C-alpha cells in the first residue's frame, strides 16, 4: 500500500488523472474479449452437434437402410432358388452383393477413421458396428457362394446371413444409443462451460470496478491534498503580509482563485502602506518578487489543470464509442440465437414464455404472438401430469434439466424432442429465467422404428411377415428338437375373401384384414406367433405343444373367434376361414415342409366346405402332388384335343331297336393312355375346368347326333351327363340353348342326365332352372337312381322324364330277392308318375329278362354293347343291330 502511495505520489498530476480511465478501458476490453470468446465457443458447439454428429448418424442410418433393402432382396432371391438356375441366381445375387460391398466400403470411408473427440468406448462401438457390417458382407457372400454350389444348402446359409444381419442391427442400435448419450453430454457440458465463463466475466467485472473505485478515491485525495496545500500556503503568505482572510469556495480551484483575489486585495492594501513604508520596503521588495513568482506559478498550474480536464473529457467520449461496439456484439449474439436450428425458448420461473426463436415457432407451428405469455410446457405438451410435475420439481431444485419431452404441435400432434433447460441467474445468483433449448427427435425415432419394422413386419396389419415367421419357426424347431416337444403350424385362409374384395373394394378388404389380424392376435397366447403371408393368408405357429390335439384346440379357438360378426367401415361381416394343421416332427422337420403341408391340409379343409380345420397326413401330400400333375395335364388336354366321346347305345325294350345313346367322355392321355372319367371329372369340377369341358361334350354330342340324323338314323336321341357343379357354377340354360341353336339339333332329341346331388342344394333355384330347361323342350333324366338319398320327393317335385336304375341294382336283380323287389317297386313307381325307366349296366341275359318281364322301358349295358367310339357306333347303327324282345311278348 505504501509502495502504491509512493508510486502515485511520484506521478505528475496529469498522469494521475489519466490512471483511472486507462485502467477502466483495459478492464472493459478484457471483459468484452472474454464475452465474445465465450459466445463463439457456444456457437461452435452448436455447430458441431448439429452438423458433424448428426451427419455421421444420418450416414449410418442410410447404410443400414441400404443393407436392409439388399438383404431383403437377397433373402427373397435365395428363397426362390429352387426355381432358377445357378448362373441366373449368381447374376442376380451378385448385383446385390456388389451393392452390399459398396455400402460397406462407403461406411468404412465415412466411419473408418476415429471421430474427433470420441472416447474409447465410442470408438469400440463404432468399430464393432463396422466389423458387424463386414461380417454380414462375408456371410451374405458365403450364402450366395454355397447356394450356387448346392442349392439345397441355401436355406441353412441364408439363416447364417440372417444371424449376421441381426447382429449388425444390434451393433447399430448400440452405436445409436451411445451417440445419443454422447450428444446429450456434449451439449450439457457446453452449456455448463458457458455458464462458468459468464460467471467469471461477471466476477472479474465486479472486482475490477471495485478496484477502480478505490483507485479513484486515492487519486482524488492526492489531488485535493496538493491543492489544499497551495491554499494553505497562500493564506499563510497573506498572514505573513499582515492580512488575515478566510477563503470561500466550493472546490479547490475556486478556492485557489478566491484566495488569489483576496491575496491581490491584501497586496493593494500593502501598496497603500508601501508609500508610508517606502523607506522600509527595500527588504520587503525581495518578498514581493517571491510572491510575484508564486502567483505566476499558480496561474500556470490553473491553466495546466484546465487542459487536463479537457483530456479527461476526450477519454469519456472514447468510452462511449467502446460501449457502442459492445452493444453491437450483443446484437450479434442475439442474431445467432435467432437463426440457429435449435428451438430456443426463454421463460420466467413459472414457465411463461418471454421470448422464442423462429426455430421454436416453426417446430410447434404457432406464431410468435400466440406463444408469448403462454405456458411453455403445460400448454404445449402431451406428457403426463406426473412427468411434468417431476420435471418442474427437478428444475426448481437443480436449476437445470435434460431429457426427452413430448411437445404438441398446433394441430394437436405430438412429437418427441430432446430438451436442455437451464436457469439464468441474476447478479445475486437467484434464478430469474429459464432457457429451453430443444431439438425435434421425430425423424431420428421414425427412422429407427422404420428400420426395425421394414424387414420383418407386414405393413398393412403390423403382423410379422413371412421372413420373420420363418425365422421364428426355425428357432422354435431347434428348441423343440432339443426338448423333444412338438410345434404346431396352422395355415389359415379366409373363405370367399375375394368376393368381399371384388364387391366392396380393396379399402374395405384391407380394413377387414386388419380387423381379422387383430382378432387372431387376440385369440392366441403370447408365445404363439401369427403372421400374414400376403392376401388373405395367415399362418400361426404354436411352439412347444405337447400333443397334436393342442393344435386342434387352438384351431377351434380361432374359428370361434372369427365366428363373431366383425364391424368394418359400416358393414357387418360374418367371416369364416379354412385351417390346415401340420405338426413337427410328424409332418415335416423344416419350416418349408411344415408350411407346405399345412397349406395342403388347408386345401382339404376348403374341400370339406369351408369353416373347418384339417390335419395334414402323408397321403394328403402325395395326393396333392398327383393332383398338381393331373391339373396341369387337364389344362393341356382341352387345348390339345385329348378328349373324345364314346357312345353307349340304349335299347328300347318294346321294339328291340336302338333308341338313343349316352355320350361318355374319354381322355386319351399321351402317356397314360385312356383315363376313365372318375379319375379326372372330380378334379375338373374343383378347378372350374368342368365348365369348358362340359360345354365341349355338349356341343360335340349334339353335332354327332345331328350327323346321325342326317345319315338317316333320325330317331336317335343323345343323352349327355351334367354334373352338380356344372349345374350350379354356370349358366347352363344359356349354354344348352346356344348349342341347340348352333348345331340345329331338335331339343326333343337331347336328354340331360342329372345326378341326385343336383337336387340336394338350393332346391328352389334348381327347380327354376330345371323348369326353364324343360321349357326348351329337352328331356331330363335322373342318373344313378337308388344310390344316393333316393328321396321320392325329388321325383315328385322336379320335372323329371326318365329314371335311370343304377347298375348296382341291376347286378343283383337275379341273385337277391330284396334287390329284385326294390327294382320292381322303382319301375312301378316311375310308371305311376308317368316317367320312363332305363336300366343301366345290363350284362347278362338273365338281367335282360328281368327287365323285360317287369316292363322296364329301355336298357343299356355290355350285354348289348359296350361304349363305342364314333366309328364303331356308326357301324353298329349301319348294321341295324337289335335285340330280340320275344321274351316279353311271349310272357
Amino acid at each position, binding site marked *: 500500500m505504501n509502495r502504491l502511495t509512493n508510486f502515485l505520489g511520484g506521478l505528475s498530476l496529469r498522469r494521475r488523472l489519466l490512471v483511472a480511465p486507462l485502467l477502466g478501458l483495459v478492464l472493459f476490453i478484457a471483459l468484452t474479449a472474454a464475452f465474445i470468446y465465450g459466445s463463439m465457443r457456444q456457437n461452435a458447439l452448436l455447430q458441431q452437434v448439429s452438423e458433424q454428429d448428426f451427419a455421421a448418424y444420418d450416414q449410418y442410418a442410410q447404410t443400414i437402410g441400404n443393407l436392409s433393402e439388399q438383404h431383403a432382396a437377397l433373402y427373397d432371391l435365395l428363397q426362390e432358388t429352387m426355381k432358377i*438356375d*445357378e*448362373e441366373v441366381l*449368381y*447374376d442376380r445375387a*451378385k*448385383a446385390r*452383393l*456388389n451393392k452390399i*460391398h*459398396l455400402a460397406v*466400403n462407403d461406411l468404412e470411408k465415412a466411419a473408418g477413421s476415429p471421430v474427433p473427440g470420441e472416447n474409447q468406448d465410442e470408438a469400440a462401438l463404432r468399430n464393432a458396428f463396422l466389423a458387424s457390417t463386414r*461380417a454380414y458382407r*462375408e*456371410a451374405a*457372400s*458365403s450364402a*450366395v*457362394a*454355397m447356394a*450356387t*454350389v*448346392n442349392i439345397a*444348402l441355401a436355406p441353412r446359409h441364408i439363416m*447364417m446371413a440372417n444371424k*449376421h444381419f441381426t447382429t449388425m442391427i444390434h451393433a447399430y442400435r448400440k452405436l445409436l444409443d451411445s451417440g445419443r448419450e454422447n450428444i446429450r453430454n456434449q451439449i450439457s457440458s457446453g452449456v455448463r462451460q458457458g455458464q462458468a465463463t459468464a460467471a467469471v466475466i461477471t466476477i472479474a467485472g465486479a472486482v475490477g470496478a471495485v478496484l477502480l473505485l478505490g483507485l479513484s478515491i486515492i487519486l482524488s485525495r492526492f489531488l485535493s491534498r496538493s491543492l489544499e496545500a497551495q491554499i494553505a500556503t497562500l493564506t499563510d503568505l497573506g498572514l505573513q503580509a499582515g492580512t488575515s482572510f478566510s477563503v470561500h469556495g466550493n472546490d479547490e480551484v475556486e478556492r485557489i482563485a478566491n484566495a488569489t483575489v483576496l491575496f491581490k486585495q491584501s497586496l493593494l492594501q500593502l501598496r497603500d502602506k508601501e508609500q508610508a513604508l517606502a523607506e522600509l520596503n527595500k527588504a520587503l521588495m525581495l518578498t514581493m518578487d517571491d510572491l510575484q513568482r508564486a502567483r505566476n506559478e499558480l496561474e500556470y498550474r490553473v491553466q495546466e489543470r484546465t487542459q487536463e480536464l479537457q483530456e479527461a473529457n476526450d477519454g469519456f467520449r472514447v468510452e462511449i464509442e467502446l460501449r457502442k461496439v459492445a452493444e453491437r456484439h450483443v446484437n450479434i449474439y442475439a442474431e445467432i440465437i435467432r437463426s440457429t436450428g435449435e428451438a430456443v425458448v426463454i421463460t420466467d420461473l413459472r414457465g411463461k414464455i418471454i421470448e422464442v426463436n423462429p426455430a421454436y415457432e416453426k417446430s410447434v407451428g404457432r406464431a410468435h404472438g400466440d406463444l408469448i405469455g403462454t405456458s411453455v410446457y403445460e400448454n404445449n405438451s402431451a406428457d403426463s401430469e406426473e412427468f411434468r410435475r417431476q420435471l418442474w420439481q427437478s428444475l426448481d431444485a437443480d436449476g437445470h434439466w435434460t431429457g426427452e419431452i413430448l411437445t404438441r404441435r398446433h394441430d394437436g400432434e405430438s412429437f418427441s424432442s430432446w430438451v436442455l433447460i437451464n436457469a439464468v441467474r441474476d447478479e445475486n445468483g437467484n434464478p430469474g429465467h429459464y432457457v429451453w433449448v430443444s431439438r425435434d427427435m421425430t425423424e431420428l425415432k421414425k427412422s429407427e422404428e422404420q428400420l426395425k419394422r421394414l424387414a420383418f413386419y407386414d405393413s398393412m396389419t403390423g403382423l410379422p411377415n413371412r421372413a420373420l415367421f420363418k425365422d421364428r419357426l426355425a428357432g422354435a424347431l431347434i428348441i423343440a428338437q432339443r426338448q423333444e416337444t412338438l410345434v404346431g403350424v396352422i395355415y389359415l385362409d379366409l373363405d370367399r375373401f375375394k368376393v368381399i374384395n371384388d364387391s366392396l373394394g380393396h379399402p374395405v378388404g384391407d380394413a377387414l384384414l386388419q380387423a381379422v389380424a387383430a382378432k387372431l392376435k387376440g385369440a392366441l397366447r403370447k408365445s404363439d406367433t401369427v403372421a400374414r403371408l400376403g392376401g388373405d393368408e395367415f399362418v400361426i405357429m404354436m411352439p412347444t405343444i405337447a400333443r397334436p390335439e393342442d393344435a386342434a384346440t387352438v384351431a377351434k379357438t380361432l374359428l370361434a373367434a372369427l365366428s363373431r360378426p366383425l364391424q368394418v367401415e359400416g358393414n357387418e361381416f360374418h367371416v369364416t376361414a379354412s385351417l390346415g394343421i401340420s405338426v413337427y416332427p410328424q409332418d415335416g422337420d423344416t419350416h418349408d415342409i411344415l408350411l407346405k403341408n399345412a397349406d395342403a391340409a388347408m386345401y382339404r379343409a376348403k374341400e370339406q366346405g369351408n369353416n373347418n380345420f384339417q390335419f395334414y397326413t402323408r397321403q394328403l401330400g402325395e395326393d396333392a402332388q398327383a393332383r398338381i400333375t393331373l391339373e396341369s395335364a387337364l389344362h393341356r388336354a382341352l387345348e390339345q384335343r385329348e378328349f373324345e366321346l364314346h357312345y353307349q347305345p340304349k335299347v328300347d325294350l318294346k321294339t328291340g331297336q336302338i333308341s338313343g345313346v349316352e355320350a361318355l367322355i374319354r381322355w386319351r392321355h399321351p402317356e397314360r393312355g385312356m383315363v376313365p372319367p372318375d379319375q379326372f371329372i372330380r378334379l375338373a369340377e374343383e378347378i372350374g375346368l368342368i365348365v369348358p369341358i362340359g360345354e365341349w361334350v355338349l356341343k360335340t354330342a349334339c353335332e354327332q347326333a345331328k350327323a346321325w340324323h342326317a345319315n338317316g338314323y333320325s330317331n336317335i336321341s343323345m343323352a349327355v351327363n351334367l354334373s352338380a357343379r356344372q349345374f350350379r357354377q354356370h349358366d347352363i340354360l344359356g349354354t344348352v340353348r346356344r348349342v341347340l341353336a348352333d348345331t340345329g339339333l331338335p331339343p326333343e332329341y337331347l336328354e340331360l342326365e342329372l345326378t341326385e346331388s343336383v337336387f340336394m342344394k338350393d332346391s328352389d333355384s334348381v327347380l327354376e332352372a330345371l323348369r326353364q330347361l324343360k321349357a326348351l323342350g329337352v328331356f331330363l333324366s335322373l342318373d344313378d337312381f337308388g344310390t344316393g338319398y333316393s328321396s321320392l320327393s325329388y321325383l315328385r317335385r322336379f320335372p323329371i322324364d326318365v329314371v335311370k336304375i343304377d347298375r348296382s341294382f341291376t347286378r343283383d336283380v337275379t341273385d337277391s330277392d330284396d334287390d329284385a323287389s326294390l327294382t320292381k317297386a322303382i319301375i312301378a313307381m316311375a310308371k305311376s308318375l308317368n316317367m320312363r325307366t332305363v336300366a343301366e349296366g345290363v350284362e347278362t341275359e338273365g338281367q335282360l329278362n328281368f327287365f323285360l318281364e317287369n316292363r322296364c322301358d329301355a336298357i343299356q349295358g355290355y350285354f348289348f354293347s359296350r361304349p363305342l367310339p364314333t366309328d364303331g357306333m356308326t357301324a353298329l347303327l349301319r348294321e341295324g343291330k337289335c335285340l330280340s324282345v320275344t321274351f316279353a311278348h311271349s310272357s
Partner: protein
Amino acid sequence: MPLYRNWMQRSMVAPTVIAIFFTLGTINASAQTSAVTPSPEQRLPGLNAVLDQLQKGGLIIYFRHAMTDQNAIQDDDADLAKCETQRNLSAAGREQATQIGKAFQSLRIPVGTVTSSPFCRCKDTGQLAFGRYVVDNNLYFTIKADAEQTKQFAASLRKMLSTPPAAGTNAVIVSHSANLREAAGLWPKPEGTAYIFRPLADGRFDAVARVLPEDWINMANSKPSNTSRQ
C-alpha cells in the same frame, strides 16, 4: 467306319463353331456390363471334338476346381493362408483331380503353365492333377469381391484366355464357377467341369468345348495310351 465318323465330326463341328463365334462376340461385349445372355454351353461340343488340337497344344483349359465337401464348413471366415478355414476338396474330389491328371498323361495332352486361384481347393486340384501350380490373385473368387475388383478380375481372366500358351503346350487355369461367368458368361457346372478356349488376336477368344470331369477319364479308358494320332 472311321471315314464315316470323321465326316460326322466335321459336319457337326463346323456349324457349331460358327454359331459359338457369334455368340461369344455378344458375350464379350455384354460381359463388360455384366448383363449376360443365356449360356450357350448346351451347344458346345465335348472332348471328342478338340482332342486332336489338345494333343498339338495351343489351347487354354479352364477348370472349375474338383468336387468339394459342401457340408463340412462355413465359407464366410475363409482365410487364404489357412486351408482349414476354407471349403476344401472332398475325398471324391481329390480322387477326381488325380484321375483327370492320369487321363491327361494317357491321352498325351501336353500341359504348360498351371495357374490357380489362391483358394486351397483350386491349388489342390492343380497339384493333384498336374503336380504344380502358380497362384494368381486375380483368380480370387468373385463372389467375395466387390464390383470394382470383380471387373478387374474379369478383365484379367479375359486377358489370360486370349493369351496363347507356349508352343506345343496347353495352358491350364484352375478357378471358380463365378469367375468364368464374369469373364465369358459361362457357368461351369458341376464342379470339376472344364471349358476349353482358343486364344484369338486382339484380346478375343473362342470357347471350343465343354468337358465334364468324367469325360477325360472315360476317353482315356476308351483309347489305349499307345494309340497314335490319326
